[in-house]
């Protein structure tokens, strides 16, 4: 499969992260093809911000993203399920502390 894609000389795939005007962090918006980082940012601008979705763009080549294996999820995430003491829900937060 990968070989077939390469043989068609397709441009590399990029993952796009957009920060909205009111947002604090960049959120994954989708992916697209581009020949270089500059073009990836411009393509992202045209594909993902033309309806005023964002004010900042990050792109990263998809091949540089390493993901956890969904098959490992029970050993990776289930052990956290009964550790309620890890949540700071027992503290009273002062009003001055924002974004918690």
């Amino acid at each position, binding site marked *: 499969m990968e070989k077939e894609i390469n043989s068609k000389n397709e441009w590399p795939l990029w993952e796009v992260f957009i920060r909205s005007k009111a947002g604090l962090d960049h959120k994954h918006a989708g992916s*697209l*093809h581009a020949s*270089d980082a500059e073009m990836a940012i*411009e*393509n992202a*601008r*045209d594909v993902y911000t*033309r309806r005023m979705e964002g004010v900042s763009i990050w792109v990263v080549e998809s091949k540089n993203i390493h993901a956890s294996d969904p098959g490992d999820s029970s050993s990776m995430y289930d052990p956290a399920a009964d550790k309620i003491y890890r949540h700071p829900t027992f503290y009273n937060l002062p009003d001055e502390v924002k974004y918690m």
Partner: protein
Amino acid sequence: MQSNTNTASPSAAAAEAQLKYTLQLADDALIIGHRLSEWCGHGPILEQDIALTNTALDHLGRARSLYQYAAELFNKLPSEAKNNFFTSIPMQQLIASGNNIGEDNLASLRDGWDYRNALLLEQPNTDWAYTIARSFFYDAFNYLSFKCLSDSPDAVIAAIAAKSLKEATYHLRWSKEWVIRLGDGTEESHMRMQKAVDDLWMYTGELLAPEKTARQNGVDGSALRQPWLDIITEVFSEANIAMPAGTWMQEGGRDGRHTEHLGYILAELQFMQRAYPGMQW
């Protein structure tokens, strides 16, 4: 009501000149917008298809604002000036009926000789390199001239230019990078980019032709020539593209003398309104 055309007041002549210049800016925008829209659904890759369509709509949006203003200027002309302004028969019929004209009439009812766009912009897409070269020459010109027009004594033109400058800045960034990408790319992309630049070069002189009305709006063609050349030279040197050697420039668009391509564009653009006058959808 003027009884003698030879004694038209200076202000009426100035209004006509400003109308012509507004139409020139509008026609540039409509024709390049239409050319770029021809790529819709045919772009080399989905992302560039969207990019070009966005850009085409920027140009079309500017064309609308300018046509609206042009119609306003036209409707305020003395009736004698109105009757003599356009030579296209459908326009003359509309004007003879005594009705005001609108933006759509200007786009749909004028024949080629009443269009004032630069010849460069009606040249066919041909291939991606031609499309890029055409846009690059025009975007560099727009970027510089909208900067000047933002200070035009005509408040409407100044406002349209200020909004368009942001768009033109991005258009120039986009087309400039493509010139570099193709020029400094593969052997074939380089060859095509060089050919497109060489072939279209003779249409660039018209963009920077010194014009009185343009100057009154803040755009001095001869003063913009060097900054425009600086942009072109810098990008070409990065793109490994040789400056075209030709010095002969083809002009005529500003006077309604066009290449054969404009007629085909207008046939496609205007057919529905000519066959079914006033139709809406």
